[in-house]
């Protein structure tokens, strides 16, 4: 599946905040061979994910390279209201990262 950029969605569902994210990242295991060169593509994957609501951490995760490419993550924060700021940050094994942020609808 090709996605051009990471996406995050947060909406109120039955009183809770449902968060869905799709993060653009190759999540290379280190075993895949580049079809053009025949060489293995180095391992390159998201290691840590932190989720926050209004700046307060609500969940964190540690991942291996076996989480799928362009990883999907869905979870639910208790309660919440429209306008809450939901943030998902990730950092990969190369030290790169991204912050996804949205307001709850």
């Amino acid at each position, binding site marked *: 599946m090709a996605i051009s950029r990471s996406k995050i969605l947060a909406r109120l569902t039955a009183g809770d905040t449902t968060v869905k994210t799709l993060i653009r990242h190759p999540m290379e295991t280190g075993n895949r061979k580049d079809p053009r060169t025949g060489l293995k593509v180095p391992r390159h994957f998201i290691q840590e994910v932190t989720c926050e609501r209004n700046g307060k951490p609500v969940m964190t995760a*540690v991942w*291996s390279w*076996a*989480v799928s490419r362009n990883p999907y993550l869905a*979870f639910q924060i*208790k309660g919440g209201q429209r306008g809450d700021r939901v943030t998902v*940050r990730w950092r990969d094994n190369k030290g*790169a990262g991204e912050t*996804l942020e949205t307001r709850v609808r």
Partner: protein
Amino acid sequence: MKRRLFLRGAMTCAAIAAAVPAGLLVPRRVLAAWPGQAFAQTSFEQSLAALLGDVQVSRSGAIRLTAPDLAENGATVEVRVAVDLDGVDSITIFSEKNPFPLIASFSLTPDVRSHVTTRIKMTGVSDVIAVVRTDGRYYSARRRVKVTAGACN
């Protein structure tokens, strides 16, 4: 409104490191550093022990583990772990027959509902195993997934 910022290197690490001292994130040993040794283990039992220590794990029907019976594409198998227990602070997902069975471990604060959904790579015919912690005790559930096209090579 959506905003996305691209942070590189030290700034991103600082953002994540800033969340840790809040004392809300457990287990500490998982968050103090990315648990490389646990991720490097090649058997389910070894990766479980490396991540959680020498703990007793009981099967529990309170864990609703959702995964397809048959996965056409082993590169992306959707797995949902939901736990019908209070006080769940950890959900960990393994794929038993993967070269490296430990896939993902989530640390939950009391602010989140006890379920997560993600997509993982699986190979061959394997059990996906969820191990959760609540009240200091560990519970597990497993589900057989048959993959018709593997994703670990």
